[in-house]
């Protein structure tokens, strides 16, 4: 649009003798530039963004980031979940199906700490929780990961902790982004409307 406008404007600029005053053509070009940058800026803000950092890998703590991520995607948010430390297990195809509940130090569990510390108790309480999840038709972690991926959620697996925990890229669900670090997460958080550490 800018070339046509400036040619036409230059020909009939009656106030060209006004010294330093910009010509109509210059003004038209500036308006075109401003409109372009405004459009770019507005475009960028068009979609809302959410950034979650998932650091926990227990069965109970795996749910909040996945539920919020899939729900935000349903709202049309662009969602990134950066998984680090035990949060990696949520994206680990095998381990995500076998996440445990810790009964020690959790006063909401039906067993006292002294009993909870007995070897094998975590397995018992995890089984009880899994049965409840099944009875209530609550989605499993695997279902939530797959659903979120289908909805366009970007799951990122922190490269430093992949190396630290000796995991491989192939261990994760298809579609999980690897080879990312804190700077990527920070950039996403800076761009996001909602940032959460879980």
């Amino acid at each position, binding site marked *: 649009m800018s070339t046509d406008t400036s040619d036409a404007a230059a020909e009939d600029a009656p106030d060209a003798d006004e010294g330093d005053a910009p010509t109509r053509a210059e003004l038209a070009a500036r308006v075109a530039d401003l409109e372009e940058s405004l459009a770019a800026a507005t475009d960028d803000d068009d979609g809302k963004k959410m950034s979650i950092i998932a650091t926990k890998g227990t069965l109970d703590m795996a749910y909040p980031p996945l*539920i919020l991520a*899939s*729900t935000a*995607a*349903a*709202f*049309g948010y662009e969602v990134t979940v950066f998984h680090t430390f035990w949060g990696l297990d949520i994206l680990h195809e095998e381990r995500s199906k076998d996440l445990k509940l810790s009964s020690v130090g959790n006063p909401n569990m039906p067993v006292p700490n002294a009993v909870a510390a007995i070897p094998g108790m975590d397995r018992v309480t995890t089984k009880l929780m899994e049965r409840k999840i099944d009875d*209530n*038709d*609550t*989605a499993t972690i695997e279902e*939530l990961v797959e*659903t979120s991926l*289908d*909805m366009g959620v970007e799951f990122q697996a922190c490269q430093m902790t992949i190396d630290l925990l000796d995991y491989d890229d192939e261990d994760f669900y298809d579609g999980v982004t690897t080879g990312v670090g804190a700077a990527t997460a920070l950039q996403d958080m800076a761009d996001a409307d909602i940032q959460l550490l879980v």
Partner: protein
Amino acid sequence: MSADYDIAETLDVKGESCPMPVVKTRSAVDELDADEVLEVLATDSGSMSDIDGWADGTAGVELLAQEAGGDVYRHYVRKTE
């Protein structure tokens, strides 16, 4: 008791709980053409508040009505664009 809408699709999420009713509603709406109405059948009592909140915060959808009758909650969502 069914509403007087020209229903294009019905989504049955009976038995499913949060976040699935909202997430699946979104996916079903994505499959509709503009102006078509989706009927959602849910048993999750939280779906009344959740689908209301979702429709309110989501561009391109309008919640026409919600009905709670018996064990099933019915939601009518129109795709606006």
